[in-house]
């Protein structure tokens, strides 16, 4: 640690648009050196992990669907910094970042993507179906996770445990009817639910202007208060999340948050991502608003860390991701006798019909 490195940055500003709120998060946020390094590490790990997944997909070692999160790292990192590990979180299919922030190792995530028994879902779930304690996936059907999130919030309220649920969705899902049903019930019953819209400006190939009559996603909860912040700034995301968490925990009911963010990749690996937006646009975001670069620059310019320290972390992270990829490509596939397991919980062993009547398979809980 250099002698004149400052440990706290006090003056970073949090710009916020408010809906039905007298006041929002504090205008100035504090960042300690340790926090900064931790957020950097988290975001850089997600970034490298996603790029590794891109590589493995192109080598056909990852199959099926793969929706990458690079560009949006500040959302996952910032939200996690604003809630407790015992709070709950549910999201849609662009979920690898959250799987990581919710405590699953890069190794287990990549091994799940490659469909190996060491994957977090033993290879049975794949990209869109990864889970962890207090993390409910990873959901493939657009929007379906939001009412589930409201339900988890209901459980928190029911049990009186002062926990809350973060329920994430994208700008595409924001127009779905089931979200409005979830808003209604959450508001009616004052559920401790933070509805968060990750607005990355495109629902698959449809820009927000072509999809929504109102693109003020933080206002779409109507009677539910809302706030909107820059989703590329991890501190803004953290402060907004803290504010929202306090709101919920104080019994005021749900709150809607909109994070303005951007994805560098297309919708999924089968989408080059340039038929509906320009390469210039993508490049512009990369050069001016990249969440990881922004944090690094901020810390460097305030003398909170050195260039060497960041380099060192980068090297460590690359190594971690490389080792995880090694594991993910060498670990064996799940054994065939796991095929029918996990149909029911707490159930005596079950006989399962195979592809024909003579194939009698076994299912254990």
């Amino acid at each position, binding site marked *: 640690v250099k002698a004149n490195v400052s440990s706290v940055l006090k003056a970073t500003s949090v710009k916020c648009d408010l809906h039905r709120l007298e006041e929002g998060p504090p205008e100035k946020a504090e960042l300690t050196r340790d926090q900064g390094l931790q957020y950097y590490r988290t975001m850089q790990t997600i970034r490298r992990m996603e790029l590794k997944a891109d590589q493995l997909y192109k080598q056909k070692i990852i199959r099926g669907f793969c929706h990458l999160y690079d560009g949006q790292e500040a959302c996952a990192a910032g939200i996690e910094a604003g809630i407790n590990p015992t709070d709950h979180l549910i999201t849609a299919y662009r979920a690898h970042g959250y799987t990581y922030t919710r405590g699953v190792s890069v190794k287990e995530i990549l091994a799940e993507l490659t469909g190996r028994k060491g994957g977090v879902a033993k290879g049975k779930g794949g990209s869109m179906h990864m889970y962890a304690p207090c993390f409910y996936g990873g959901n*493939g059907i657009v929007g379906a996770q939001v009412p589930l999130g409201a339900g988890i919030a209901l459980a928190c309220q029911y049990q009186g445990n002062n926990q809350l649920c973060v329920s994430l969705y994208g700008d595409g899902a924001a*127009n779905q009817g089931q979200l409005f049903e979830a808003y209604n019930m959450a508001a009616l019953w004052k559920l401790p639910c933070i509805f968060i819209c990750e607005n990355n400006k495109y629902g698959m190939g449809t820009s927000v202007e072509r999809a929504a009559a109102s693109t003020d996603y933080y206002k779409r909860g109507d009677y539910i208060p809302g706030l909107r912040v820059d989703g590329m700034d991890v501190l803004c995301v953290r402060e907004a999340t803290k504010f929202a968490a306090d709101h919920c925990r104080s019994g005021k009911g749900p709150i809607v948050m909109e994070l303005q963010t951007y994805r560098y990749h297309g919708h999924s690996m089968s989408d080059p991502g340039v038929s509906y937006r320009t390469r210039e646009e993508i490049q512009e975001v990369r050069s001016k608003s990249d969440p990881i670069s922004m944090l690094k620059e901020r810390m460097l310019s305030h003398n909170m860390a050195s260039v060497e320290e960041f380099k060192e972390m980068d090297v460590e992270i690359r190594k971690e991701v490389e080792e995880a990829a090694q594991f993910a490509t060498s670990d064996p596939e799940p054994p065939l006798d796991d095929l029918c397991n996990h149909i029911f919980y707490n159930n005596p062993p079950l006989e399962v019909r195979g592809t024909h009547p003579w194939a009698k398979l076994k299912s254990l809980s």
Partner: protein
Amino acid sequence: MDEELERDERVFLMVEEVAQYDGALQVSRGLWKKYGDKRISTLPFLRVRILIMWRSGGSGGGLLLFKTGPSLPLFQAGLRPICEFMTFNFSMQAIDQVINSAAKTYYMSAGLQPVPIVFRGPNGASAGVAAQHSQCFAAWYAHCPGLKVVSPWNSEDAKGLLKSAIREDNPVVFLENELMYGVPFEMSEESQSKDFTIPIGKAKVERPGSHVTVVSHSRLVGHCLDAAAVLAKEGIECEVINLRTIRPMDVESIEASVMKTNHLVTVEGGWPQFGVGAEICARIMEGPAFNYLDAPVTRVTGVDIPMPYAKILEDHSVPQIKDIIFSIKKTLNV
């Protein structure tokens, strides 16, 4: 679809991501450029929920189509929509309307409100898309009176049946298959005509045989033909029937075949319980062909589990050609 859009102005297409994305699986590629916004309605990426309400009065009836999400009411008097689901897994979010509004309306209105709509899209297992994206809905939809359910196998089926479905005055669920989109087939001269249609409700004998009837639909018809080729070398001649339509099912064709071969094996990708094969078994039992069976009917189906992701598990979750061969031999007791 292009030919039918050209032929009848009332036909129009509703597809997610059809414009700049060219339709997620490119089935509607080029149509928006040719016909424009009025005929090709591009829906935002929302997993369309279609609410169909009937309006009383007027011959031919009116159809009010709501899409929840951005709730755009579209009033079409006498229009003939083709609605694409990105996959039929997403149709579950709209299934109330498919059943309660589309399937039942003509009956409930005692003939006042026909519903000439086609729901189409890929159905069933794909490759590595895991549990929520791999389900077969043939049995679900075919269970319901008021719907016609069609499941093409090859290019001729796809073209002829889709044109019939579009010209059909009743709701049709058109189950395509993603893995078949890229498979080329030779097409006869006749099938290349703009008026080539295949009747809904009629199965086709793809391969005549005398020892066993093998009935299938969609992609697995190909697997059955492959199995038949292998078995032919051992002197077993399979009669392979391509159902083409699930509902109304052409039971007569199956019966005629069984009365000739005395053995029946059904092959489907969907789950076994309450499925297409189960229905075939019941219908055979209830009809004249039962007395011609020399062995119980064998059903070859997907494994009765949610679809796993890992390749080795996925491969073992769907019928393989070897499973079909095994089942045929067991049925024939050889």
